[in-house]
C-alpha cells in the first residue's frame, strides 16, 4: 500500500487561495479558491477538512471550510467579528477562534454551535494553542493567558472560579505573535519584543527567556521537544535549544544553535512533520520552502504567489465520508445546551472485514476445553462411563450425550454450569 499522501498547504494574506502541493511529487494537487488569511488563521480539522478565517473584506470576515478534493469553498460562516487566530483540537471536535476585539469563540464543529464566547484580552487575540484542554492565548496587548476549557464551558464552574483564566503572563512587553505548546506542559511564545519565552503551564511561571536578533513571527516545536524553530523577520529560521547547559552559564545566545537561511523576506509561518524531519516554511517573499532538518538543506521550493505567504501546513488528508458541514453560528443560542451535538464519527478502517477470531469459533474453544488438564474431570468421568461401569452399558450413549453437553456448557459457552445435567 502506498504511503498516505502528504500535502503542503500554503495560504496568503493576499487572495491567492490555498495551494496544496504533494510533498513527494512536488506537483500542485489543488488550489482552493478565494482564501486570504492572516497568519495562524488556517487550520486542519482532524485531517478531515480545512478551515480558514479570512481577512476582513468590507464588512465581513467569513470563515471558510474546504473539502480536500474540491477547489471551491464548501461552507462559509460569518462570525460576529473578524477572527485573527483559528485552531482546532486534535480530534476536530471544536474550532477555537480569537477575534480582533480580544474575544475568544468556541464552536462545536459537528453542530456549528457557538458553545461559549468570552472576553479574553483587551486587544486582538493573535495566537492560540492547546495543551490537552488548556487553551493558551496570546494577544496584541502583550499578555498571554491560560484558560481551562472545562471551566470556561461550564457556567457553574465559571461562576465559582475566582478568575476565569488560570494563569496570566505579562512578561512580554510587546504584542505576542505566536505560541506553541508541547508535552511536559510547556509553552513557547514569541513577541515583538524580540524574545521567545518558555513557560511551564503546570507551574504557571516563566522558565526562560531567549533574545533573538530579530522579531520572531513563527514558532514550531520539534516533536522530541529539545529544540524549536523560530522564523524571524530577517528571513532566517533560528534553531533554538530548549534546554540550557548549566555548565556553561554564559549569555542565552548559546540557545540559538543554528539558522536556516534562504528566505529573502520575513518567515511568517512554519510547520513540522510529525517525525521532525521535514520543516515547511512560508515567507513574505511568496515562497514556500521544504527543509530537511538533518542536513538543514532546502529540498523543495514552491512558489505560492506574489503576495506574502502567511500560513503553511503539512497535512495527511483523511478522506472520510463526511456528513454535510454545518456553518458556525454567530452567537450562542439562548438554549445552547439542547442544540449541541455529539457524534460518533465512522472509522474508515472499521470497514475492513472482521478477523476470523472475532466471531465465536466454536471448535477452538471446544479444543481448549479438550486440552488435557483443563477438563480432567471430564476425562475421568468419561472413562468410567465408557469402560468402567458395565451396568451403565444401556445408557452409555445417554450419559456420553450428557457429558458432551456438559462440555459445551462449561468449555464452550462459559456459562450455564451443567444446566442440562441438573
Amino acid at each position, binding site marked *: 500500500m502506498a504511503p498516505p499522501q502528504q500535502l503542503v498547504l500554503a495560504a496568503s494574506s493576499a487572495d491567492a487561495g490555498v495551494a496544496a502541493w504533494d510533498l513527494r511529487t512536488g506537483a500542485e494537487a489543488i488550489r482552493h479558491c478565494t482564501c486570504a488569511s492572516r497568519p495562524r488563521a488556517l487550520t486542519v480539522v482532524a485531517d478531515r477538512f480545512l478551515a480558514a478565517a479570512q481577512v476582513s473584506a468590507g464588512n465581513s470576515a467569513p470563515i471558510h471550510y474546504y473539502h480536500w478534493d474540491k477547489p471551491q469553498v464548501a461552507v462559509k460562516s460569518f462570525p460576529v467579528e473578524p477572527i485573527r487566530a483559528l485552531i482546532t483540537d*486534535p*480530534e476536530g*471536535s471544536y474550532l477555537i477562534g480569537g477575534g480582533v476585539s480580544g474575544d475568544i469563540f468556541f464552536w462545536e464543529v459537528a453542530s456549528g454551535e457557538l*458553545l461559549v464566547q468570552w472576553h479574553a484580552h483587551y486587544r486582538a487575540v493573535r495566537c492560540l494553542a492547546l495543551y*490537552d*484542554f*488548556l487553551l493558551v492565548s496570546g494577544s496584541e496587548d502583550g499578555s498571554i493567558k491560560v484558560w481551562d*476549557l*472545562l471551566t470556561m*464551558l*461550564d457556567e457553574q464552574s465559571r461562576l465559582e472560579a*475566582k*478568575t476565569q483564566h488560570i494563569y*496570566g503572563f*505579562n512578561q512580554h512587553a510587546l504584542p505576542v505573535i505566536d505560541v506553541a505548546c508541547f508535552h511536559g*506542559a*510547556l509553552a513557547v511564545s514569541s513577541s515583538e519584543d524580540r524574545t521567545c519565552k*518558555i513557560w*511551564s503551564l*503546570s*507551574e504557571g*511561571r516563566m522558565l*526562560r*527567556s531567549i533574545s533573538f536578533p530579530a522579531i520572531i513571527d513563527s514558532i514550531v516545536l520539534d516533536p522530541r521537544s*529539545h529544540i524549536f524553530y523560530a522564523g524571524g523577520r530577517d528571513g532566517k529560521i533560528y534553531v533554538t*535549544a530548549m534546554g*540550557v*547547559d*548549566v555548565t556553561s*552559564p554564559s*549569555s*542565552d545566545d548559546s540557545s540559538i544553535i543554528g539558522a536556516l537561511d534562504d528566505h529573502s523576506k520575513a518567515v511568517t509561518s512554519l510547520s513540522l512533520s510529525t517525525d521532525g524531519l521535514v520543516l515547511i516554511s512560508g515567507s513574505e517573499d511568496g515562497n514556500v520552502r521544504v527543509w530537511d532538518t538533518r542536513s538543514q538543506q532546502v529540498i523543495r521550493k514552491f512558489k505560492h504567489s506574489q503576495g506574502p505567504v502567511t500560513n503553511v501546513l503539512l497535512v495527511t488528508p483523511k478522506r472520510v*465520508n*463526511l*456528513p454535510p458541514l454545518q456553518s458556525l453560528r454567530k452567537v450562542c443560542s439562548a438554549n445552547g445546551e*439542547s442544540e449541541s451535538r*455529539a*457524534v460518533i464519527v465512522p472509522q474508515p478502517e472499521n*470497514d475492513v*472485514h472482521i478477523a*476470523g477470531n*472475532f*466471531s*465465536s*469459533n*466454536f*471448535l477452538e474453544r*471446544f*479444543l481448549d476445553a*479438550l*486440552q488435557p488438564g483443563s477438563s480432567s474431570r471430564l*476425562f475421568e468421568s*468419561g472413562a468410567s462411563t465408557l469402560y468402567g461401569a458395565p451396568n451403565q452399558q444401556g445408557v452409555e450413549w445417554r450419559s*456420553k*450425550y450428557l457429558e*458432551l*453437553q456438559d*462440555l459445551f456448557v462449561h468449555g464452550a*459457552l462459559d456459562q*450455564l454450569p451443567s444446566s442440562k445435567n441438573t
Partner: protein
Amino acid sequence: MSGAGGFLADVNDPWLKPRLLRAVVGERLPKPGSDLPPAELASVLDAVRTHGLLTERLPGPHDAKLAEAWRAAVDAWVERVGDLMQSDLPYSRWLGTCFLGLTFQECSNERFAESYSNWFEKILSNLQEPSSVQLVIIVSCTSMSDLFVRLARFLNLKKEASSFAGRVVEPVLLLLNANGPVADEAVDLLRTVIKLYPSSVNRHYNKVESAIETNLISSDVNVKLKEKFARALASLPSVRVSEEIWSLMIQKILIVVNNLLNDAFIGLEEEKKGREILMLLVPPGNDPPPMLGDQTKWSGGNVHVTKKFRVYTVPTISVLIHCCCVMLTSYYPVQVNVPVHALIALTRRVLSVDGSLRTKLFPTTTSLHQELICFELPSLHSSFLDLLSATIKGMRSQLLPHAANIVRLMTKYFEIAKLPTMRTKVYSIVQQLLTSMGVGISMHLLEAIVSNSVADLDDSCGHDMTSLSTKPTIVTNESSSKSYSKKRKQETDAQNLHVSGSEKTAFSPKKRKKISMSTTTETTADVIMLTPLSVKLAALETLEILLNVGGSLRTDHWRAEVDLLLINIARSACDTGGRYEYKLSSTVGETSIADFQLASLKALLASFLSSSHARPPYLAQGIELFRKGKLEIGTKLAEFCSSALLALDVLTHPRALSLESAVPLGPGLTYGAPEKAIFGTEKYKFSLSGNQSQALEDDGPYDDWLTSTKVSEPTGSPPKDSPVGKEDAIVMSQGEKQGTHLEEHQQTDVVIAPAAIQAVPTSGRSDIEMADAATTGTVNLKTTDNPSSSNAALTPVRALLPDLNQQVAAPVSEEGHTDLADLQNKTSAVDASLSKAVTGGEAAPSGASSHFMQSRKTDDSDAESEDSMPGIVDGDPDSD
C-alpha cells in the same frame, strides 16, 4: 525425500502429512454410527491442528505426487465427514459438523472456494430440520459462523456470501426463541452475519429487532444471554445505512429505561426528574418514537410487586444499559448523533439516588419499597457507571462541554460509593476522564482523587501499632522523629489557618503508616480488616494516572503527601509480598498481592518521573525497591522493574538539559531579589565555620550564588519541604543510632553534599537543601564581593524589574487563593528549614536563624514571620 512409502526423512518431511491424515481417517475417525471417546476425539483434533493435516500447503518445489497424495487424503477426510453428517444418528451428525467446522478453518483456499456452497447447504439443512437434536443445532450454528468468517476473506465471493447470509437469517430467527444454549449460539451466528453481511439482514430488520427485544424483556432468559442479545441489538443499526436508525434506537431504549426508573424511584427523588429527561430525549414538538418491542410486555407481567423489582425491573434496565454501552463504543458506517445530554442526565439521575427518602409523605413509598431499592441500588449504579464509562469512551473530547458536570457528579458519588465494586468503578471512570481530558481535568479532580485514594490506601497499614517494637530501631527512630517534625509542621500550619481538612486528617494515619510500614500484616485478622485489595489497586492506578497526567500541577497542595504515601505503600507491599505471593496466589481470586505490588511500583515510578524539575525525594529507596523487584525473575514485576530502572536512568544520570536558565532570568530571582545580598553575607559567615566540600569547589562561586537565588524562589519549592525533611530525619536517625554527634555530622555531610550538587540544575526544592547546606557548612561560599556573582546578580535584576512588579502584583490581584497558599507554603517552608537548621547540627550559629528570619520579613508579612518563631523554639528539643 522419501516417496509414498518407506521411511520419512524427518519430522518435517511433507510426506508425513498425507500419511498421517490417511491413518487418522482410516483408523481413528469413526464411521457413521460408531462412537468415539472424548479423549480420542481430542487427539484427532489435536493431530489435525498440530500438523496442519488439512492445509495442503506444500513446502518447497511443487511435487505433483505429494500434492496428489495429500489431496486424496483430504478428499477422504472430507468424504468421511460428509458421511458422518448424512447419518441419522445425532452423535454422528454432531461429530461430522464439528469436523466440518474444523475443515473450514484448516483447509486450503482452493478447496474452500470449491466446496463452500456444498458445505453451506449441509449445515443449513441441519439448522432447518426441526427434528435436529439440540447439540447438532448448536454446533451447526458455530460451524456456520466459521464458514461466514472464512468466506468473508474471499472478496470475489461477496455476492454469493450475502445471499447465503440472507438465507440463514430466517432459520436463525426461529432459533432465537429456543432455549438457552441454542439461542446463545444462534445469537452469535446472527451477530456474525450482521457484522459481515449487514445488507443481507436489511430485509428482516423489523423481525430481527422484535425477536431480540422479546428476548431482552423475557424473564426466563438468563443474564449472560441477555447481554448477548443486547450486543446483537446494538449492532443492528449498522444494517441500515442511516443515521436516524441509530438515534431512534438509543432514544427508544433510554425512554424505556427512564420509564422503568420512574416507577422504581418513586419517593426517592424529586418527581419531575423523569419528565425532564424525557424532554431531553424527545424535544417538545417532536413525536415520541414507537415503543421498544411489544408495549404490553413492558409491564413485567403479573409478578408480585416485591419480586418484580428484582426479577424484572433491574435486570431489564441493566441489559438495556448494556446495549447502550455497546452502541456508544462501536463504530457505524455513518456518523451518528449521540443524545449526550440525556445520557448524562440519566446517569446523574440514577447516581444521585442514595436510597434516602426525598418526599417522606409519598403514599406508596413504604419501608419495604425503600429496602428493595437499596438492595438493588448497587447493581443499578454499577450499570450506570458502565454507561458513563462508555459515554466517556465513545465521546472522547466531545464530552468537554459536559466534563465539569461529570466531575461534580463523580466527586459527589465518591461519598456514596462505599462498596468495593462501586469504588473500583468510580476510580476507573476517573482514570478514563484523566486520560481523555488531560491536564485540564486533573485540576478539577485533584482534590477528590487525592483525598479518596489517600483514605483508601492509608487505612491499609494503619491499625497495627503494637508490632512496632519488633522492627529494627531505625524505623522507630525514623517514625518518631518524623512525628515530631510533623507535629511541628502541624502546629505552624494551624496557626496559618490554612491546613485543609483532608490534609489534617491525613497526618495521623500517615504517622501510623510510617510505623507499620516496617511491620508485616501477617495475621489473618489484619487481612480481613483491610480495604479490599481491588479498591486499593484502583486507587493506586488512579494516582499513577493522575501523576502521569498532571503530576507537576499545583504541586504544593498534594505532591508531598502523595509521594510519601506511594513510597510507603510500595515498601510495605514489597516487604510482605515476597512471602504472600506464594501463599495467597492460589486462594486470592481476582486481585493478588502481586498485582498490588506491581501497581504500587508503577505508581511509584510515576511519582518519580513526574516530579517537576527536581530530583524526587525518595529516589534512593525507590531504586532499591526496583532493584529488588528485578530479581523476581519470570514475573511481571521483574519486567516492569527493569524498564522502570531504565526510565529512571534519566533522573540518575541527567542527560537532558534543564529548561531553566542558569542565568537568573526566572521569576524566582525577581521575586526575592532584595534578599540576595543579605543571604550572601550570611553565607559568608557560615562559610567561616563550614568546611567546604570538595565536590562543590569546581562549580565555584556561581553555584552558591545560584542557590541563594533559589531560596527566595516562590514556586515549586514549598511542597517539597516535608519530603526533604523526612529524608533528613532518616539521616538523622541513623546518626542517632550511631550515637555521637561527630559521626552524625559526617554522615549528614556525606548525604547532603551530593544533594546540594544535584540541586544546582534543578529549580524547585532548593531552599531546604540550602538551609541544610548552610548549617552543615557544605555550601561553598567564598566571598560576597566576588565580582562575577554580584555582577551577574545585579544586572539581570535591573533588567527584569518590570517583570518583578508584575509577577508580584499578579497573584494578588488575580489569584488571591493561590497567593494565600503560596504564602502559607512559604512560611511552612521556612519553618521546616529553620527547624532543620536547628536540628540538623548544633554547629549552626544561632545567628543564622535570625538572619533567615530577617530576610523573610523583607517580603513576607509580619504575621508570618511571627509564625515561624515558634517553629524554631519547637524545633529545639528535636535536636537531641
